[in-house]
């Protein structure tokens, strides 16, 4: 018997006589209270994670700071490429090329206010996963219409089977005495630019 068949047979044997489980009660929240200002809440949570928050297209240049070489996905809107930096489109750039970049500038798929989470699903203006990982500084643009209050509202907006990265603040660790320290292997600086509709 193959391992597959044997394991499945063991499972069926283990469950012999066990009826179906009762339907899961789903009485939890699926949204925040209607009067919540989700933009304000998102900003509050991002700042709590030590991310930097900016407002409007013009602020992108400031968010990029001193960065000279900035990676962008090829479909990043032209009007977001603000400032004096060299914007390098990712056309299968090598790891070494990504490693010498100063920053990366992308959009996102959705943002969850209550947990300060920005979600990337390889969709428009986001590029492949490596470009938002190797450079040490990630600047991400979030439009108001992409911000939702609750995780349950964000999941339906994602392309489920595309590679996703959910980002909540810069890279961090709590491995030493359970004290949170920002900055390990992912981008150590996260700047979020919020664009009104």
């Amino acid at each position, binding site marked *: 018997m193959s*391992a*597959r068949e*044997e*394991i*499945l047979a*063991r*499972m*069926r*044997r*283990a*469950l012999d006589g066990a009826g179906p*489980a*009762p*339907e*899961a*009660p789903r*009485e*939890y*929240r*699926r949204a925040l209270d209607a009067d919540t200002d989700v933009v304000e809440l998102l900003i509050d949570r991002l700042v709590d*994670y030590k991310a930097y928050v900016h407002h409007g297209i013009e602020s992108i240049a400031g968010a990029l700071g001193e960065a000279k070489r900035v990676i962008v996905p090829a479909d990043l809107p032209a009007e977001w490429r603000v400032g004096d930096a060299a914007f390098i489109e990712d056309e*299968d750039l090598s*790891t070494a090329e990504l*490693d010498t970049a100063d920053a990366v500038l992308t959009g996102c798929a959705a943002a*969850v206010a209550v*947990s*300060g989470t920005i979600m990337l699903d*390889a969709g428009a203006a986001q590029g*492949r*996963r*490596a470009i938002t*990982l190797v450079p040490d500084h990630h600047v991400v643009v979030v439009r108001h219409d992409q911000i939702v209050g609750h*995780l349950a509202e964000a*999941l339906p907006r994602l392309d*489920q*089977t*595309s*590679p*996703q*990265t*959910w*980002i*909540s*603040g*810069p*890279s*961090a*660790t709590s*491995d*030493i*005495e*359970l*004290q949170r*320290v*920002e*900055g*390990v*292997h*992912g*981008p150590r600086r996260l700047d979020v630019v919020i664009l009104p509709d």
Partner: protein
Amino acid sequence: MSTAFPQAAKVALGMPQLRSNLAHATGTIRAKRAKVAGELDDWEQLRSAAAAIKADVQRRMPELAVAFERNATEAGATVHWARDAAEANAIAARITREAGADEVVKVKSMATQEIELNEHFEAEGLAAWETDLAELIVQLAEDKPSHILVPAIHYNRTEIRDIFRNRMADAPKGLTDDPAALAEAARLHLRRRFLSAKVAVSGANFAVAETGSLVVVESEGNGRMCLTMPETLISVVGVEKLLPRFADLEVFMQLLPRSSTGERMNPYTSVWTGRAAGDGPKDVHIILLDNGRTEVLADEVGRQALSCIRCSACLNVCPVYERTGGHAYGHVYPGPIGAILAPQLEPGRHDDLPYASSLCGACYEVCPVKINIPEVLVHLRQQGPHQAGEKAAMGAAEAVMARPRLWRAALGAARFFSRPWRGRGFVRRLPWPGSKWTMSRDMPVPPKESFRDWWKERER
């Protein structure tokens, strides 16, 4: 019965530095968890939903495992099945060799610790490099993890600095014990390795049957590095990690980060489904692991242990774990969850662990998937071996207690013989064979009169 735990616990209790490190760390995380769990007014509803979803996964495991396999395969992954640790390790080693590699980078994973993948790779002449900061510390120290979430919880910052100084060849000169400096040293140490690794090994926090997706939850970005940069990715996934639907993440991704690191959300969560053109590994393997899980599934009371999402909240609140640390349990899963998982995954080998508990129930209260750990502990105690003397004593007690006249006579005798101790409340040590009982508990001194006698007197 095995006496490994009581002996190991005794050693651990004699180490003041260990006890102070553990008290500090578990105290910190308990406060953080309580704060962020308290922020959600539907926490209890989330727990109930999670428990029910996991119970459903257990009942429908064959169907969901096959659906996961089909959907992951359609998305370009190769799905393997492993009956036990040896089979899983052999598959992982073969894939690594076929990729032309002699080393792998690893994402922190309990499943690969459970099957001792690192040790197996080493025996086969392959190297497995841990990349999670705490796992790196433990690997450098040639030690074993002592906590599910924070494997180096038993070290303080100064001890970690010394490990880096003595055992990390490229540790920066003048390294201090500032946690930020230690994290920076780990970043420098691992960066080249990440960017040049050919093969990575991971586990998974969730496996979504509906889509064939895997989910890895992490903080540092080492997970993203391993899951994104290498050409080949091998994920070892216990069959209990299944979730029916993608939307079920709306429950578990609220509960897990808040219960584990005490954050509203962990810094990074990666979700991938097979291969993606031009994005990440080109060769994606998933090893579905049994290794005792189907045995656990067969136990109607014990199977709830398979609901565990490895958050480790139960470790942090456990009065036993807080004092002994994880090593005393002698298993990769320590603490309350380990006390019910280890004896079930390896029957006959850890039958003292269900006794490593005062049954206070704090673990059940914090468990995000509502595993009734005390219930399973008692169930396993009943099933485990008992010495002839204990059986005889319990049999005699049963015979006496079942006969009211005998029981009254026994109580009368106990009151008579305990007169010298009256007023002290408790007896610390009884003579043999009672010493077996008082070795780990105090014996209350019987009162002057029984409730029954007092009631009778009052009626008169």
